[in-house]
């Protein structure tokens, strides 16, 4: 579903991503670990068609970017550091707006379903401005999965969520993958990465190091540190 080869991204003189290769198959959950500034968000933004690579090829479900970016966007769900909402609109107005952009049939039913799923049913008519960080994150999740995307790209999806929110997110990720959808998520939480992902990729110094899944937290932590040192 996601295929990246020879991907590099440069900001000015700084090479953020260096000759990356990555494949994520159908129904796979892959966790992306890495220190702050490693380029996890940059990689996710490139895959989400929000940024362009300096070099390299990116394919989303066989659609080459940036040529087929508009078609690929219909298959992608993305949640970044910000929930990408309009604070002056209510929770339901936000979702209805994006439902119209994505031409979602029976949008009202879908919006009701999602507000219920993320636990915002009773707050649907409140402006997003009045929401806490965690509630905005919940609404952001609803926005990202509104059009039932085949590929989910999530940048620290658990950030700001309380215990029940984090559990809802874990359940959602597992169910989404079970339906054959692909998930790539960036996180700093090694426990969660081990619990959810089939594969763990560590991004350090602009390069990826692939780690297995059957690791203990201590082993993962040691390999993570090793990958970080090796890639500078």
């Amino acid at each position: 579903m996601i295929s990246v080869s020879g991907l590099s991204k440069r900001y000015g003189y700084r090479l953020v991503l260096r000759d990356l290769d990555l494949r994520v198959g159908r129904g796979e959950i892959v966790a992306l670990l890495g220190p702050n500034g490693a380029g996890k968000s940059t990689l996710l933004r490139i895959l989400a068609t929000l940024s362009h690579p300096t070099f390299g090829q990116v394919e989303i479900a066989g659609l080459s970017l940036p040529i087929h970016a508009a078609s690929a966007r219909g298959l992608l769900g993305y949640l970044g550091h910000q929930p990408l909402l309009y604070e002056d609109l209510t929770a339901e107005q936000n979702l209805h707006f994006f439902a119209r952009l994505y031409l979602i049939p029976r949008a009202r039913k879908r919006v009701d379903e999602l507000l219920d799923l993320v636990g915002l049913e009773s707050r649907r008519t409140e402006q997003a401005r009045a929401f806490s960080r965690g509630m905005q994150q919940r609404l952001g999740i609803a926005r990202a999965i509104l059009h039932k995307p085949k590929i989910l790209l999530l940048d620290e999806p658990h950030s700001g969520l309380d215990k029940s929110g984090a559990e809802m997110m874990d359940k959602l990720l597992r169910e989404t993958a079970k339906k054959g959808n692909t998930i790539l998520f960036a996180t700093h939480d090694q426990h969660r990465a081990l619990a959810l992902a089939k594969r763990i990729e560590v991004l350090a110094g602009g390069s990826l190091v692939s780690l297995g899944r059957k690791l203990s937290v201590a082993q993962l932590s040691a390999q993570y540190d090793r990958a970080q040192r090796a890639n500078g």
Partner: protein
Amino acid sequence: MVNYFSALFSILRKDLAVEWRSRQLLTAMLVFSVLIILIFNFALELDARLRAEVSAGVLWATFAFAGTLGLNRSMAIEKEHSSLDGLLLAPVDRSAIYFGKTTANTVFILVVELFTLPIYAVLYNVNLFTPGFLIVIILGSWAYSAIGTLLAAMAAQARNRELLLPVLLFPVLIPVLVAAVRASTGILDGLEMVYIWPSLNIIIAYGLIMPVLGYMFFDLIVKD
């Protein structure tokens, strides 16, 4: 194509809903317009004949300055919480975003004009409600928004966007403003259309060329 127009109208509807909820943009534009008109009214102590002669100039200067506030705010709401990314993720041609924002900005300017024109007409004792004058106002407002939205999207990429927009906007806007003032003055003075058409043509040309540029380059302007 259906998807394109659906996205365009969704963005227009969203901008109107955001403004209906916040009432920030229109309030600021309206208050600012009325203040400028009052300042001109007291600063230019003109007799009735001279007042009529400067009417179009004062009006278009007012709309241009007030419009800058609106343009800045219109892109600021997209940048504040990276909401623009939400639009850019939609599976539609990104120029639909430009046309949606341009249409919304035109509506906002027209609403401001709707409230400002009667105040101006009373203060300056000029009849502004003639079909010809209103057509110039509508065409000029569209051309202004088409230019302004494109440049506001450019300025929004910069850290000092509020400062940058007027610097980018006014040099490009001068031909349209001059043409709009001339066409409006001609209509208010009751000149024959043969004298007004050259100015109208400039406004129409800008109103057509700028959207074409927006269609071609908006994607490049907003890309990371």
